[in-house]
């Protein structure tokens, strides 16, 4: 206590010690602001550079056209389609399993062996590199099941890859709903299932949507797991096919392929254009999913945010 320097009892003006502390406060504020701003600058610089490089490539024949094997002027139409197609297939498998498992672990499972094993399995799955998962998909779906390279095999591999993350997101979204909500429902004679379906999940829908958007971004950008499972080609006579048992090269895989394996002369042009389109797709999906999430939240809760 004796070390504290008290300001003069007769003055309200800052002493040198107060001035020094205020200076430290000001410097810290500026540094923290600069760090935060650098994130915006990096993103902006990245987007501007991508647009600068890829803009000239964005012609209708590029966006909607068929890829070419050996000559210049190939398009990426089927690849864009495949990216969305595999995304949808993957979400159809991932969302129900991950949400159901997350609900079970968070709301039903008592602490014990089974819950620990499920948690441990999910965490182990989450640490497997995607290229290893791709090789697993190759062994199982391509060789063991004799499917060859298929959209379905790719989607199932991506499901394995993304299940743990979405299950984790579900658990956290449910944990964020206060227990007073469950208690209120129970106090009105509701069963556990009614509390979950009518109160807990609707309250968690915003966070769940955010989780789905995050894994969707990863699915759009995934290459290693798909190279071995969904393949590097598109069926030329029917590229916009709903049949899941056919090769389905996505845009991200195409980007990797053109840069590393392809022999077409306009590699850079196609690469830059594909990268920009991929970026736009992720942004569009992000915005769309957030709008949907907000709509759902408003629908269930009667107000936005």
């Amino acid at each position, binding site marked *: 206590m004796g070390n504290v320097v008290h300001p003069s009892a007769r003055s309200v003006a800052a002493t040198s010690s107060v001035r020094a502390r205020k200076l430290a406060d000001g410097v810290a504020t500026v540094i923290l602001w600069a760090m935060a701003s650098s994130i915006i600058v990096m993103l902006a610089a990245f987007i501007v550079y991508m647009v600068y490089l890829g803009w000239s490539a964005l012609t209708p024949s590029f966006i909607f056209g068929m890829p070419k094997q050996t000559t210049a002027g190939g398009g990426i139409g089927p690849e864009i389609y495949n990216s969305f197609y595999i995304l949808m297939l993957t979400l159809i498998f991932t969302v129900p399993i991950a949400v159901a498992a997350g609900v079970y672990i968070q709301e039903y499972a*008592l602490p014990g062996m089974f819950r620990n094993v499920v948690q441990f399995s999910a965490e182990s799955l989450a640490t497997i590199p995607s290229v290893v998962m791709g090789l697993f998909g190759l062994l199982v779906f391509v060789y063991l099941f004799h499917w060859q390279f298929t959209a379905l095999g790719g989607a199932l591999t991506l499901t394995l890859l993304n299940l743990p993350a979405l299950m984790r997101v579900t658990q956290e979204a449910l944990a964020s709903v*206060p227990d*007073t*909500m469950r*208690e*209120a*429902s*129970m*106090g*009105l*004679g*509701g*069963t556990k299932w*009614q509390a979950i379906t*009518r*109160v807990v999940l*609707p*309250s968690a829908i915003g966070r769940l949507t955010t989780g789905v958007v995050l894994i969707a971004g990863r699915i759009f950008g995934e290459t290693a797991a798909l190279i071995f499972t969904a393949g590097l080609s598109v069926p030329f006579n029917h590229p916009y096919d709903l049949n899941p048992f056919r090769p389905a090269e996505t845009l991200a895989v195409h980007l990797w392929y053109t840069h590393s394996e392809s022999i077409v002369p306009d590699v850079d042009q196609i690469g830059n254009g594909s990268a920009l389109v991929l970026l736009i797709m992720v942004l569009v999906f992000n915005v769309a999913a957030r709008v949907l999430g907000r709509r759902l939240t408003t629908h*269930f*809760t*009667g*107000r936005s945010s």
Partner: protein
Amino acid sequence: MIDAAQPATASTAADKIVARDVDVFYGSFQAIKNASLSMKAEHVTALIGPSGCGKSTFLRALDRMHDLTPGARVEGTILLDGEDIYSPEADPVVIRHRIGMVFQRANPFPKTIYENVIYGPRIHGERNRAKLDEIAERALRQAALWDEVKDRLHRSALDLSGGQQQRMCIARAVALSPEVILMDEPASALDPIATSKIEDLIGQLTEHFTVVIVTHSMQQAARISDFTAFFHLGEIVEVGPTNQIFTHPREKRTEDYITGRFG
């Protein structure tokens, strides 16, 4: 020992809920010891006592709200209209339909006011829209909230003030047409004006319902209740008509508490 089971006065009202020799345990800790209490139909019974005396624990036992608390165990007998609510045939969902609960902190669902109020009837199977509208209006009128919210039934309940939220929670319990409403310090988080609205409301509710209310405010117990039970260290020390408890307590501990010597 204390003979709390003995009815305090010869009241003509029927017993709605009778608790006999109730013990509640949390693991090895005994929170309620040998509590016996009769709660009269269409009257207000107040449970008072210092913090940690077990009054909320006792209240929650009346609605089987301890069922899902890991490690909690209720022993003894609790009769609702003469039927044991802890017997193997008794279904907690049915019990909680007949006994509504209002919690210490208003806990509106993040839904519209309308959806909140009809939540109970809806989960019990009522689908008719006109019927639900009618239930909502009646419940909100009974909770003295209708005039304040009738123009914004389809707005979020979270936008209501704290006092309005608590009255809406009362409306939500009332909408079930329960026989008993349990209230766990329903006004403790509210300002004096909102509190007096809730208190007025409780007086009106006894026209249709049996009310059991936990309160830490002796003034509140004195104002609104017909019977009062004084809890201390997990036991019911004394129970009787409210004015008798507050003017002529028989037990020394009751007198010490209501005169402010501890608590």
